[in-house]
């Protein structure tokens, strides 16, 4: 159990960083870290305090061939789905969070409508699919467009993510029982999902959830759904 008493919590964090917790305790702390801010901050402070001790380990050249193994694993595990895009020309730079919040409700709908119209009017070979992801209060937050077999996202409302959390993008094809992770949303409000991970299709549910650093530890969404929408043909409405 993670103690609520600050002193006990700090002692637990200290031994977690020191490495003396047993497997069960360590697993418990690792499970709690993404959701327990006080614990996370205590661990971060202890890591900072004890960090210089890592310098006591004698450097040893890693074995030959280890890099190749790492490179293969990184290539396999990171589908490189989400990469920052260049800002869309003509769009204002993201405002500071505070001012943004105020301007948001007034401006977002207009921007969404404008962007949507822009996308619909562009000459397009394959049938276009898009959706606007809405907040729980039905405010437009992200424009999602199928593009070249992948997806392209533009934030209508770039907002800072809660400290110590990340936004993770998911797709749920019609009929599927579990969503597929499309990766973490980078800062900056623009992202592109490379083709191959999913095949965008009408009715596909797209959602963004709030997850611990590094993304959902389970491969399924664990945090609240921040934004959600369903892909549909762009000219079908």
């Amino acid at each position, binding site marked *: 159990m993670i103690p609520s008493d600050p002193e006990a919590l700090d002692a637990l964090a200290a031994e977690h960083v020191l*490495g003396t917790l047993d497997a069960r305790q360590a697993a418990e702390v690792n499970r709690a870290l993404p959701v327990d801010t006080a614990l996370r901050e205590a661990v971060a402070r202890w890591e900072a305090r004890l960090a210089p001790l*890592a310098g006591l380990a*004698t450097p040893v050249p890693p074995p030959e061939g280890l890099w190749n193994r790492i*490179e293969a694993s990184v290539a396999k595990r990171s589908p490189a789905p989400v990469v920052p895009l260049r800002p869309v020309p003509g769009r204002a730079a993201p405002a500071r969070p505070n001012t943004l919040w105020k301007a948001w409700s007034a401006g977002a709908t207009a921007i969404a409508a404008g962007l949507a119209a822009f996308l619909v009017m562009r000459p397009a070979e394959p049938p276009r699919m898009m959706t606007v992801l809405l907040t729980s209060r039905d405010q437009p937050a992200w424009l999602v467009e199928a593009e070249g077999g992948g997806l392209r996202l533009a934030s209508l409302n770039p907002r800072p993510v809660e400290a110590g959390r990340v936004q993770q993008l998911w797709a749920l094809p019609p009929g599927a029982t579990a969503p597929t992770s499309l990766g973490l949303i980078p800062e900056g409000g623009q992202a592109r999902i490379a083709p191959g991970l999913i095949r965008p299709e009408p009715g596909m549910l797209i959602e963004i959830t709030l997850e611990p650093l590094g993304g959902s530890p389970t491969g399924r969404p664990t945090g609240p759904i921040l934004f959600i929408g369903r892909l549909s043909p762009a000219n079908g409405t």
Partner: protein
Amino acid sequence: MALDPAGMIRGVANGEAGALRRLYDAQGSRLFGVAMAILRDRDAAADALHDAVVKIAARAAQFDPARGEGGAWLAAIVRNAALDLARARGRETPTDDPALGDTAVAPEALDRICETQEAGRLRDCLNTLEARNREGILLAFVHGLSHAQIAARLDMPLGTVKAWIRRGLARLKGCLA
């Protein structure tokens, strides 16, 4: 082309070509040393460094230079990967190696790490602890020894070691505050 750890982590986060390789080349020996000190087995340490670098690649965007130094962030990920592996193996790492810890817990060893002001303060604070208490903390952090392993090595009752370490950490915290 930044060679400081924070700059290299940023390069990885930005998806710069070859950034992860540059980081591995520059930091690999230091990080493999961290894993080796805990696992004392080249194959296991290689597994730990592998897991850690894959994690570093995935989490580079989450590194926040305002919250800590880049080299420390990397070492923490490697330590956690090595400790997870040590725990998964029931910490059946050899601890009767006569050379174990001698370099890390020698009285003069701490002088090697005080390149920075923080490290110097940590050394001074560690030096205020009783020698065995300090040794226990160093054996745990650097060599990943469990309470039981530290107790066996220092020939002290397990309960005493647990209490000492807890008290030692609390004193360190007070001293560093």
